[in-house]
């Protein structure tokens, strides 16, 4: 182990899981998220929309999506805002395929996102150097440190100050979003990072931001900066 590795106190949520749950993630033949990946890989080559174009028509083989998931959220020059990977997929769908955008947490959207994210597995989280993204990361950091809800907790209170301690029967992870979209045992399905963030907000009895809200994307951008350099493990399994 290198010195840089030893000095890094950051741990993936994987480290906090029970061995049986870790085994599910480590083996693609057991990981239920691979069902969504299989669906996404089929969608990659399927012509859609009025343009009758598939993802592959523009991008080629899905293996060429390697390292793409590692850079999102990122600034979109056409949208003039920060967007995450699922928003980029829907953007392609509307502008290139001329199809209607998938609703949030749609099975097909999660499938494509999981299939694309899988191509970056093992690569370090690498947010691009963009001034607009830096602004979003700062806004996200403010949200991360902001106490919210009737329980009056910030993300930092649990996932930094109390990380590694117990909440009920569960160990509190450090909150590094390196495995999204994830198969969560509690959901019994695949879900996005925004779904997870909204779940935490409800748990502290705050009003969660709407799906796709810029605040959630800002939080995602900060989490990517906070986890920069950590290996992606999508699609991960979480309890």
């Amino acid at each position, binding site marked *: 182990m290198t010195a840089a590795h030893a000095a890094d106190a950051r741990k993936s949520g994987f480290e906090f899981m029970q061995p049986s749950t870790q085994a599910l993630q480590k083996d693609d*033949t*057991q990981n*239920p998220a*691979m*069902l969504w990946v*299989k*669906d996404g890989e089929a969608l990659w080559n399927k012509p859609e929309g009025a343009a009758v174009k598939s993802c592959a028509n523009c991008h080629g083989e899905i293996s060429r999506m390697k390292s793409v998931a590692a850079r999102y959220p990122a600034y979109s020059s056409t949208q003039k805002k920060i967007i995450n990977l699922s928003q980029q997929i829907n953007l392609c769908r509307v502008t290139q395929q001329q199809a209607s955008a998938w609703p949030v947490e749609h099975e097909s959207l999660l499938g494509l996102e999981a299939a694309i994210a899988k191509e970056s597995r093992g690569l370090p989280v690498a947010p691009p150097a963009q001034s607009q993204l830096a602004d979003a990361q700062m806004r996200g950091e403010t949200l991360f440190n902001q106490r919210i809800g009737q329980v009056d907790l910030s993300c930092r209170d649990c996932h930094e100050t109390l990380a590694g301690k117990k909440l009920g029967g569960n160990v509190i992870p450090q909150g590094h979003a390196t495995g999204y979209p994830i198969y969560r*045992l509690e959901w*019994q*399905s695949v879900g996005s990072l925004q779904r997870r963030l909204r779940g935490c907000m409800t748990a502290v009895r705050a009003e969660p931001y709407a799906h796709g809200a810029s605040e959630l994307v800002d939080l995602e951008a900060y989490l990517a900066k906070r986890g920069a350099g950590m290996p992606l493990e999508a699609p991960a399994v979480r309890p």
Partner: protein
Amino acid sequence: MARTLITVPRTAKRDEIIEIRALVQHSMETGYRRSSEGDLLPRDLIRRFTCRFVPGAVANANTASTAGDLIFAATFHAAIAANPYLSFNLRATTSGTLVFTWEGDNGLAQSDTVNLLVA
């Protein structure tokens, strides 16, 4: 059509014990849960899983669900988690086709076949 992930070695030596893994996408809705509006969510379960082995030539898809030897079967109930995963072993004796079938509520009848070559 349910999505499935079946893992079987393509080839096996004679009398080798091989591991077969079968994962299927299914909500396994218990029939006890309620929606956020308070309505009971209708029960939707896989009831039975079978794996049959048809020796010799590739099995005909139409007769596949009853042909051959039953090598593994399971009856599922409401307490089984969504997207059930099963793993079991088979002693490979001859080449043939493995036929996997999931049957359940709402007319679920999903069949998949995998060829096995025994050398």
